[in-house]
């Protein structure tokens, strides 16, 4: 099946889990990456259960935050 990852169309195995895609894409510090699937944000705890489908669009966003004092 084909999915789009960060704007790039890729062929992946049928029934690929989101967590497998994260490993396959070598996403660094995945615990600090927000994942969206078809424009919906996926809770970190749900990544293990999400099964990707043909035509899905996945984005990985690094958390962007900080602070002024500490």
């Amino acid at each position, binding site marked *: 099946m084909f999915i789009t990852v960060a704007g790039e169309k890729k062929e992946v195995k049928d029934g690929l889990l989101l967590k497998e895609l994260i490993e396959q894409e070598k996403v660094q510090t995945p615990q600090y*990456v*927000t994942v969206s699937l078809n424009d919906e944000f996926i809770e970190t705890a749900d990544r293990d259960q999400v099964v990707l489908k043909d035509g899905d669009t996945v984005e990985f966003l*690094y*958390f*962007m935050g*900080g602070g002024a*004092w500490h």
Partner: protein
Amino acid sequence: MITLKKSDYERMLAHARAGLPAEACGLIAGTIEDGSKIVRKVYLLTNTDHSNEHFTIDPKEHLSAIKDMRAAGLVPLGNWHSHPESPSRPSEEDRRLAYDPKASYMILSLMDAEPVLNSFHIEGDVSTKEDLVITD
């Protein structure tokens, strides 16, 4: 080296002043030519923490900005945020939460009458000031 247009700097500054007393934030996108980063677009986004000591970029706006960059043929270059009451240097929290070693982290200090903008490369606990050029 990283280059920023004066007009983009002024938009950034206006957004930071409008957001006071909270920190303001956003993203920078552009091109990389011969190893130098050229900022072509500055995104003025929402600090969902609404705090003068912390910022988190709204993930929905972050996603929209990434799509916009892609459509415009630009690459993400990093982010920027303001320090309303402290200097233009990464705080301990800024360093701890800088997860992307390829990114530039711009910090705009409003603590003095004259604003100060610096750009940093942050990897682990080490932050290095980048050569920032503001052009007309």
